[in-house]
């Protein structure tokens, strides 16, 4: 195991985060604050409690997840796409590093960044609404698992993409809609029964449901199922990454 290489990649990626602090941390925090102002205060005050908690408090886990999902994908996809784009990937491919070490460095850094971001957003939320976390360890587990899984997913997108449009396409067209429809702002119990069934095919429902359970013990699906689905998606991403490196897909011609 080339730990020095993992460390070098990890620190290199984290340095990029600090260098671009404004885009990396400040802008997601500002946009999340806007959600709180609009949904939590302006609209939320006219909405009744959901599952025994105020609407503003109810949407906190969903908002954190929204940022963690999108930022994990954005960080990881950009992290690996950029060396491909500018050509510096040659060094990575010619270095004595295994694929596992490359993934560990890039995905580790992307996940670290979104976990930090998730915690910052949580802290921001505490300024707007009262916050109770009933199962802090489960909360952290879901946060870390989601960050890692979606960083892996972003890594795959970054390798697959051969242009900046494609880099944006999957997050914009698939992940954002799935997140909004995955119960970030509502409980799927509020939906008509047919739409509720459709929602169960949305993997993000399980992530948000599990995460919300760790806060309020309110869940759309059982927490075990949420946990299982999260691990399942993680496994799918790992297999995809393993295949990419085994075949050299879009990396080695």
């Amino acid at each position: 195991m080339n730990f020095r290489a993992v460390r070098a990649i990890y620190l290199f990626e984290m340095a990029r985060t600090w260098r671009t602090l404004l885009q990396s941390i400040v802008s997601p925090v500002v946009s999340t604050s806007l959600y709180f102002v609009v949904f939590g205060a302006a609209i939320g005050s006219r909405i009744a409690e959901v599952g025994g908690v105020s609407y503003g408090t109810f949407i906190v886990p969903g908002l954190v997840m929204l940022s963690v999902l999108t930022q994990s994908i954005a960080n990881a996809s950009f992290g690996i796409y950029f060396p491909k784009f500018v050509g510096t990937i040659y060094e990575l491919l010619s270095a004595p590093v295994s694929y596992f070490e490359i993934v560990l460095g890039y995905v580790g850094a992307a996940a670290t960044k979104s976990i930090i971001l998730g915690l910052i957003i949580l802290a921001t939320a505490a300024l707007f609404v009262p916050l109770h976390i009933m199962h802090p360890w489960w909360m952290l587990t879901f946060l870390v698992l989601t960050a890692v899984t979606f960083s892996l997913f972003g890594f795959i997108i970054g390798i697959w993409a051969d242009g900046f449009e494609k880099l944006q396409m999957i997050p914009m067209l698939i992940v954002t809609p799935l997140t909004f429809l995955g119960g970030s702002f509502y409980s799927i119990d509020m939906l008509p029964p047919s739409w509720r069934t459709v929602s169960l095919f949305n993997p993000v429902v399980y992530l948000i449901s599990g995460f919300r359970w760790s806060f309020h013990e309110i869940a759309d699906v059982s927490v075990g199922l949420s946990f299982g689905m999260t691990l399942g998606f993680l496994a799918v991403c790992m297999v995809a990454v393993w295949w990419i490196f085994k075949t050299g897909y879009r990396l080695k011609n």
Partner: protein
Amino acid sequence: MTSIISVANLSKTYGSGFKALNGINLEIKRGEIFALLGPNGAGKTTLISIICGIANLSEGRVTVDGHDINRDYRAARAMIGLVPQELHTDAFESVWATVSFSRGLFGKPKNPAHIEKVLKDLSLWDKKDSKIVTLSGGMKRRVMIAKALSHEPQILFLDEPTAGVDVELRKGMWEVVRALQASGVTIILTTHYIEEAEEMADRIGVINKGEIILIEDKAGLMQKLGKKELKLHLQSKIDAIPDSLAAYNLELSDDGRTVTYDYDTRGERTGITSLLSDLRAAGIRISDLDTSQSSLEDIFVSLVRAS
């Protein structure tokens, strides 16, 4: 000298069906400077990319100091520093950070003293805190060389190291390369500039259309280069070379108006003076003469055309 890189029956076919390399066999000797010459698209960069792990091979085997580049890639790659042809740099990193990153990536412990030495040798020390984006093209090229040297490789690949580099800087790079060779590093360089190969290399290989068409010691090639040709244009046509001139191995052109004499400029006597007086004795009068030298370039061009 033993081989440090051994390439056997290497072929590379791209997904498009294009065969970039075809049955390459090549031994690079430990400690030498090997120049790989070839026209654009000959397969130079593909060959380097495969040895360094950037491209997969289709057939054949490559070992680096006995380590198979696929099975034992860590040991093989740890020995190699690569300076690619294109200027691929992390624009917003500082010189120091990017060079230190390379050392870590290759699994070497931190060694600021070594990085400092590399940067000083390449005249980059005063730019160590500059962002790469602010550097000139020649400096970026040197940053890439510094990255390749950061992890103390025993083999250095330089793919067109002096393309687009001004004359003074080119001379500077040659000095760096010579100093590296003196410290025991094996160097493989590709180049378009024949002059560069002549100046630097111990051995020269010529590649064209994915095949190695010549590998020779530079000394051997220079031997060929030492040959000159003297063409004598005659005032009037002759039917045959007189017997009295047989010793000169003259060649008579078909129209009987030109004779050609080959000689070695580095020989003690070229024989030109006696040839001229013998011609005069034989009653042959000369209207004009010219001499020409076959350069490495001529050899190269004729090889590439013939293959």
